[in-house]
């Protein structure tokens, strides 16, 4: 497998010439082209969302209420119910998924070691990141919504299920980077394992864990599919996340996207810009945390 098959001519210490050189050039240009090709849709989407959303977004759009019916033009009411819903539901999902995910990662790295159970959990957690988000929605619908009704909490459960494996993976990678001598030094001082983990290992990996968690939150904040059958859609703010239907920015974009009314589409673009701004802020925060607070990196 490792045998080098490519140079068919006799080894030649001079620089490659002719077709060999051209082929090398062409392939390098194609690689650069591959990157440029991805810039086109990205630039196109960001440009459209900013161009169309910027004229819609105002203080009133973000904090006004209720969300008006589709036929009304933009400028009446506002998206506050959706902004509130997104913040509450994503926040609640974070409160559930991040502690559990970090604890799971601690098990994988500090306790599980090379055992079969840790290997199985690690593997299945990676597999779980591939479970479609809509399936998470159906899952929470069948075990929670059917018995307790629609609520922000149900949506938070679904988003939490999505975030959990992402948090486990990123935290595990960070814990793995903490050097063993740090642990050994604390054991030598007589600390128990839980104490070593909580006061030495976890703080050492905190920067990376926080930045991984922020990226998981950004991913969850933009998800629509798990919320479709767990929170429904309402047009007035529902601050009680534990009962009654709720709404979110992605749900509003989804329901406005297929409307023929200009007002509805405008609200869709405004909500899209708000959502992208939230996701980007989270991502930039993650980068800053990584750059400033990460002690160990690959």
């Amino acid at each position, binding site marked *: 497998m*490792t*045998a*080098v*098959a*490519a*140079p068919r001519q006799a*080894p030649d*210490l001079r620089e490659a010439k002719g077709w060999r050189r051209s082929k*090398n050039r062409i*392939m390098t240009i194609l690689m*650069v082209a*591959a*990157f440029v*090709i*991805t810039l086109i849709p*990205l630039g*196109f*989407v*960001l440009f459209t969302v900013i161009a169309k959303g910027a004229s819609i977004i105002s203080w009133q759009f973000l904090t006004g209420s209720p969300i008006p019916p589709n036929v009304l033009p933009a400028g009446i009411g506002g998206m506050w119910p959706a902004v509130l819903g997104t913040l509450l539901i994503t926040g609640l999902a974070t409160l559930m998924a991040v502690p559990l995910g970090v*604890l799971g990662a601690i*098990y994988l790295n500090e*306790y599980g070691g090379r055992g079969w159970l840790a290997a*199985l*959990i690690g593997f*299945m*957690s990676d597999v*779980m990141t*591939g*479970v*479609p988000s*809509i*399936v*998470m929605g*159906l899952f929470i619908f069948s*075990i929670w919504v*059917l018995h307790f009704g629609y609520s922000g909490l149900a949506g938070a459960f679904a988003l939490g299920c999505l975030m*959990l494996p992402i948090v486990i993976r990123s935290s595990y990678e960070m814990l793995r980077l903490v050097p063993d001598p740090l642990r050994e030094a604390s*054991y030598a001082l007589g*600390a*128990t*394992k*839980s*104490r070593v*983990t*909580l006061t030495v290992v976890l703080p050492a990996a905190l920067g990376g864990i926080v930045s991984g968690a922020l990226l998981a939150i950004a991913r969850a904040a*933009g*998800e*629509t*599919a798990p919320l479709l059958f767990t929170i429904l859609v309402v047009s007035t703010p529902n601050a009680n996340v534990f009962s009654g239907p709720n709404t979110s920015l*992605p749900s509003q*974009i*989804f329901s*406005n*996207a*297929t409307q023929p009314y200009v007002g509805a*589409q405008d609200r*869709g*673009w405004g909500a899209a810009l708000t*959502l*992208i701004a939230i996701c980007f802020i989270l991502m930039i925060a993650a980068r800053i945390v990584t750059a400033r607070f990460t002690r160990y990196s690959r």
Partner: protein
Amino acid sequence: MKADPASPAGSAPLSQQRPLGDRGFQILALASGLLVLVILVLIAVSTSQQAASWFSTEGLKIFTNNWDPATNHFGVLGFIYGTALTALIAVILAVPVSVGIALLLTEVVPYRWSRPIVYVVDLLAVVPSVVWGLWGILVFVPWIQHIYASVGSGVNGVPVLGALFGPPTSGASFLTAGIILAFMITPIVTSLSREVIATVPQIDREGAYALGATRWEMITGAVWPHSQGGVVGAVLLGLGRAMGETIAAALVIGSAVNVITTHLTVPGYNMPAVIANQFGEASGTFRAGLMGLGVLLFVFTIIINVLARGIVERSARRKRGA
């Protein structure tokens, strides 16, 4: 918590000498780890239960191309075809680009340039699915339908191309969904391919250069044989993502049921999109059928992900050991 001088580093057995808090924490961590397995089992059990009446009333007819809630027919073959087709289009479009970027990052550009490129590619993943969908339906579909129409009339009657791109054409179609899905899976395929390619030993590269290989010859001779397997795994993971991606597909795929055709530019449906669009109004066997689609989707993606992760892990381990 009191210090426990009797526990040696790392390998303390669960003895009575360990303080309660210490054992409690271990159990808590274990429970959180097990939660992953519990959730996966619960997903399988609870959704299958909800879908049971569909499996039992329809029997093997679930695999016919006949989805008609009005007459109580719930065959999902068309959706399975749509899922496979759109995911395949996405992979065919995204893989060359992703592998190209991965090679660019690992083999061509210097390290300080590679980070900004990674950031930019990752931005594609930060744009939420629903925003891709909104842009897709309001901007991309109206723009591309003219291209479809002119290409369609151009290739009409040409043997293979005519069957793929010929009229009738529509902006919201399998192909459009596949293109949008390709944008969305590019970051993950890129980052996984990059990880795999990074495990190729530096000495192999140097050996190829020492023999006088150009960079491209070094890539095909030294890097590719080493990373082939892992890249296949990355591609499979991308396929799994594309199969499960819901909202963007739901908005741009055109929402036409029972479409099985060689034409790529006609409206159709895939599994996640039909669940998203029809679940709200469903009840009884209809709802059970959509749940069943969810079960099938879950099974398909789990199989693909287990395969893919297995391949990626095995190739990464073998290369590291070598």
